């Protein structure tokens, strides 16, 4: 009983320190998306290089694909862009671009300057599709499975680590099923 008087506050303190320690390494900007494991929100948007043509998630049913939200004004998009260009060369998985709140001219110029890893980029000029997909910080990347269900969301730029350890293994697994 006497030991408990000292052990109890010590125990509470240790638990508190544990929580705070874990909290140190968590990014408050990464808000878990409620859309993971839900069907991808529908859209039908004009393509960047040919606005007469439209594209939507239903066109991509039956294959695993990535949706990468990007913009020419987005600084950290430049960080992840070389990784996407490399990924596109391997032809492992089609990447669809969502050109978010951008102008077509600037978007096209940006792709011409930095390389175009996208099978198709679609234009979301007023950001409405972005809202449907719960986009709040560009760049964001979604992994969509063959049934059109979102399986993973990466907030912020893709890194070599997130690509090799999370995204690509998931893509391979989904392609097998």
């Amino acid at each position: 009983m006497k030991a408990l008087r000292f052990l109890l506050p010590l125990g509470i303190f240790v638990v508190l320190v544990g929580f705070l320690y874990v909290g140190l390494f968590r990014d408050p900007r990464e808000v878990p998306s409620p859309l993971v494991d839900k069907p991808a929100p529908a859209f039908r948007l004009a393509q960047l290089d040919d606005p007469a043509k439209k594209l939507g998630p239903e066109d991509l049913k039956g294959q695993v694909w990535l949706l990468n939200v990007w913009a020419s004004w987005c600084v950290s998009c430049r960080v992840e862009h070389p990784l996407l260009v490399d990924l596109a060369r391997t032809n492992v998985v089609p990447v669809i671009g969502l050109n978010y709140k951008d102008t077509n001219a600037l978007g096209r110029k940006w792709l011409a300057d930095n390389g175009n890893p996208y099978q198709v980029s679609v234009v979301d000029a007023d950001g409405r599709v972005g809202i449907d997909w719960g986009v709040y910080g560009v760049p964001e990347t979604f992994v969509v499975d063959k049934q059109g269900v979102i399986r993973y969301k990466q907030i912020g730029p893709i890194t070599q680590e997130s690509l090799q350890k999370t995204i690509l293994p998931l893509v391979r697994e989904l392609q097998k099923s």
Partner: protein
Amino acid sequence: MKRLVITAGLAASLFLLAATAAAQAPTDAALEARLKALSEELRCLVCQNQTLADSTAPLAEDLRREVRELAQQGNSDAEIKQYLVARYGDFVLYKPPVKPTTWILWFGPFAFLLGGGLIWFVVLRRRRRGGGDDLGQPAAGPTGSGQEERARRLLDDAPDT
């Protein structure tokens, strides 16, 4: 006759105009007040410690526009919140919903208060009953120790201020 008709027509249109203006003004004010109240309960996801009402981030502007349109389409506050929660999660709400994962958040402080009160009560009762303090040491009685005598001497010796 013609003039009379024109006058009557003008009067009628003026009346209609005034009537619609009068009818519109209060609903608009009510809508604005409702939108303001609503956007003060919603969190901007870009600047996370600001409400949707305060933030000037482009996304906040878009979301305010979206909320306004939903309200104009006749959606209730609860439906509008549900629309945003479906896209961004409970994090958009400044007031988190009460559900099993938030029970600690909602009831934790009261549990701590109750626990503290309970400990306080037990300690007080033990002191009153046992005479010993809560560390289990015997009460420092005046008997035999000569402490009372020493205290009096100290007090007497103290210089007057």
